[in-house]
């Protein structure tokens, strides 16, 4: 496909879609398909279209995550601008007919707070594009960013554009993306690589998986633009094997893009070549760390190595390597299409753009939301996601999985951006948000995350390998009512050691949930130690008396 053909294809597909009376889009990411059977519903809608004699007028297709994962499956009616949740196969004829009365109480309009409160950039195609059809993506303006960089821009200009946008890495560390690209672009090497880190493993986080399953071409386009900017010809997407649907969608998308000449030897019939291969991880959390991920792609044991040298200098097989997270790549195409000024106009001065959050735990509407950086936590949880269900009280929100900390109720108005969260001992991390209610013991929560880190430690460096075990045992002792105040000092000392001396981010960040719960909920620790009781009432600490 060359440039003229891409534009023509976009026109044709748009006209075709405009000629339809309605498009019914069933969410087809794993939450709705595997857990709630949206594929079967899609079949019934197909049958209902036949029955009502509307083929060619009404169309049913899959689409990316509609956001209401806690009320799956979700279906969207394109011309009514409405999304219905908890849909069953029996609803199919009503959906086709456009009978809205059937869905009373199950309808979320685009003007409702859930959608109106959001600002969708990464998720802009959710509810518009079928992830399995490249034409759909093209009709929605897809690959226009790639077209623009190839036909109008120099690699230097692309890097400058990303720098100006203020985009920061969405994998957790928040390193400025443009600077990283510049580092790789500056390296003189005949071989360079672009890697997409899709090894999302935080408990409660599913943003990256949803993006890959719901809009894989967007990630491919972002990677291709990055490859053009830094001078790479080969890319890898490292997906964890626990997301088989994401692997399948990405593979389909790569095949389609290659067939259409959007990837391969002559991208868009220009003198630019770029190929992408999929590498499947075996599910080790530490393989999300960039050097461990690179080792894993190389076929080695997935353990991190000390940095520097950083991957932009010495990465995959020793070559300069650009490694970005899925969500980071998903932001690239819109930035190029709409300009860095548009992107930089969202968010705050230090944190530009938007961020996708995966909401889980005790919340009315668990699922995916995307809001501008700096949106207060209260707005996300209470205005958009409907707050905590009746009968429960908000206690804290755990951000960023096992690497970050909790945000207690008194900090609900904190703007969600990198620096503000750091100031209160937490971080955005990859974007998981687990809402915890009053029935959860914070010491137990800290122990849960420490157990996770203990299990996922690779064992290479001592502070992480042995430190996580000792911290976990100390927390366990406190929970069982056998702890002492000296144990709190020990926790602090171990935390200090792990933060300062661990080899990679896993060990450095593992103490964060403990230290943040100790900071905000010390009374719960002390109640376990002194009174042998749990303030939340969820664990039953009791002094065990040995009668030997």
């Amino acid at each position, binding site marked *: 496909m060359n440039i003229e053909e891409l534009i023509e294809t976009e026109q044709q597909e748009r006209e075709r879609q405009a000629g339809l009376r309605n498009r019914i889009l069933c969410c087809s990411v794993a939450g709705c398909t595997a857990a709630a059977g949206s594929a079967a519903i899609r079949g019934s809608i197909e049958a209902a279209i036949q029955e009502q004699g509307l083929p060619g007028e009404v169309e049913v297709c899959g689409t990316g995550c509609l956001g209401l994962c806690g009320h799956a499956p979700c279906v969207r009616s394109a011309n009514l601008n409405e999304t219905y949740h908890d849909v069953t196969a029996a609803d199919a004829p009503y959906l086709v007919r456009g009978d809205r009365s059937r869905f009373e109480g199950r309808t979320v309009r685009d003007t409702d707070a859930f959608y109106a409160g959001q600002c969708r950039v990464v998720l802009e195609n959710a509810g518009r594009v079928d992830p399995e059809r490249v034409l759909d993506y093209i009709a929605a303006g897809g690959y226009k960013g790639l077209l623009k960089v190839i036909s109008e821009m120099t690699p230097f200009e692309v890097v400058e554009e990303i720098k100006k946008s203020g985009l920061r890495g969405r994998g957790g560390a928040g390193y400025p993306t443009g600077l990283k690209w510049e580092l790789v672009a500056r390296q003189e090497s005949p071989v360079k690589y672009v890697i997409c880190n899709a090894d999302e493993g935080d408990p409660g986080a599913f943003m990256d998986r949803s993006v890959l399953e719901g809009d894989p071409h967007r990630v491919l386009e972002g990677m291709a633009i990055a490859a053009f900017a830094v001078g790479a010809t080969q890319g890898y997407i490292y997906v964890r094997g626990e997301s088989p649907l994401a692997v399948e969608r990405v593979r389909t998308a790569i095949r389609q893009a290659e067939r259409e000449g959007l990837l391969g030897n002559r991208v868009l019939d220009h003198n630019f070549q770029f190929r992408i291969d999929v590498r499947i991880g075996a599910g080790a959390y530490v393989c999300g760390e960039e050097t461990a991920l690179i080792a894993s792609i190389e076929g080695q044991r997935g353990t991190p190595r*000390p940095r520097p040298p950083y991957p932009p200098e010495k990465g995959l097989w020793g070559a300069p390597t650009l490694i970005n997270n899925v969500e980071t790549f998903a932001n690239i195409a819109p930035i190029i299409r709409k300009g860095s000024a548009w992107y930089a106009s969202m968010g705050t001065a230090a944190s530009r753009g938007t961020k996708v959050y995966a909401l889980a735990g005790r919340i009315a509407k668990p699922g995916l939301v995307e809001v501008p950086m700096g949106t207060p936590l209260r707005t996300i949880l209470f205005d958009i996601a409907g707050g905590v269900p009746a009968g429960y009280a908000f206690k804290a929100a755990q951000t960023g999985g096992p690497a970050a900390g909790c945000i207690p109720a008194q900090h609900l108005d904190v703007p969600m951006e990198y620096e503000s969260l750091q100031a209160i001992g937490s971080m955005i991390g990859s974007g998981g948000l687990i809402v915890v209610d009053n029935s959860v013991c914070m010491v137990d929560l800290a122990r849960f995350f420490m157990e996770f880190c*203990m299990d996922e430690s*690779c064992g290479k460096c001592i502070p992480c390998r042995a430190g996580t075990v000792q911290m976990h045992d100390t927390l366990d002792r406190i929970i069982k009512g056998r702890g002492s105040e000296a144990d709190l000092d020990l926790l602090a000392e*171990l935390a200090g050691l792990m933060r300062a001396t661990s080899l990679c981010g896993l060990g450095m960040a593992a103490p964060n949930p403990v230290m943040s719960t100790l900071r905000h909920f010390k009374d719960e620790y002390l109640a376990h130690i002194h009174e042998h009781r749990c303030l939340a009432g969820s664990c039953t600490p009791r002094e065990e008396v040995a009668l030997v």
Partner: protein
Amino acid sequence: MRVRTLEIDGQMMTGAPGESIFNVAWNNGIHIPRMCHLGGLTDVGACRLCLVEVEGQSRLLPSCMTPVREGMVVRTNTPALQKHRKLIVELLLAERNHVCAVCVANGACELQDLATSLGVDHVRVRYRHPQCEVDLSHPRFGLDHNRCILCSRCVRVCDEVEGAHNWDIGHRGTNARVISDFGTAWGDSESCTSCGKCVQVCPTGALFSKGASVGEMRKDRSFLKYIVTAREKHQWIR
């Protein structure tokens, strides 16, 4: 060749480009503690004992893997570093069953020496007392996982110097173990050449020669210098 001039613990020193802080310090009489580093083998930066403070760097850097730079100011023995090293050694001692009194390497153990030199007179974390296996299937050598600190010297010497790659690390986290071939008994290994290099580089009593009793195991590493020097100077082809 232009030398690099830097300051380590207040002394001015010079090193070759690409040389590590650890080496330069060692050559000038400053012995930074270490467990995984061994001259002649590639470095992995795993034990975190040789971490040093470098002025202008917010993080501690592993001296074995950080090349010297012109004008660098390095501190190798600050109170904070001493505190970290002590706790690391305590974690190591508590992790498995390091019972010096009944260990073959008693008196010639790098972990023991390090604990003594750092002043580790007690361990503040709880001993874990894990159940670890002892592999005595090899006719000449034994592997006692109770004493292993996972420094991976054996893995590297077998791969890089002997070229056999019998050893590797299996499993993860606290369950990580040195494994022979694909986790078979050492005696059944098809790749092991029985050269014994792994035994000689092991810093503790984890790898030992059969027949050595308590406190009798002595390690001889002269072969390593001999081989590595010969290799670097291409003496093999003369």
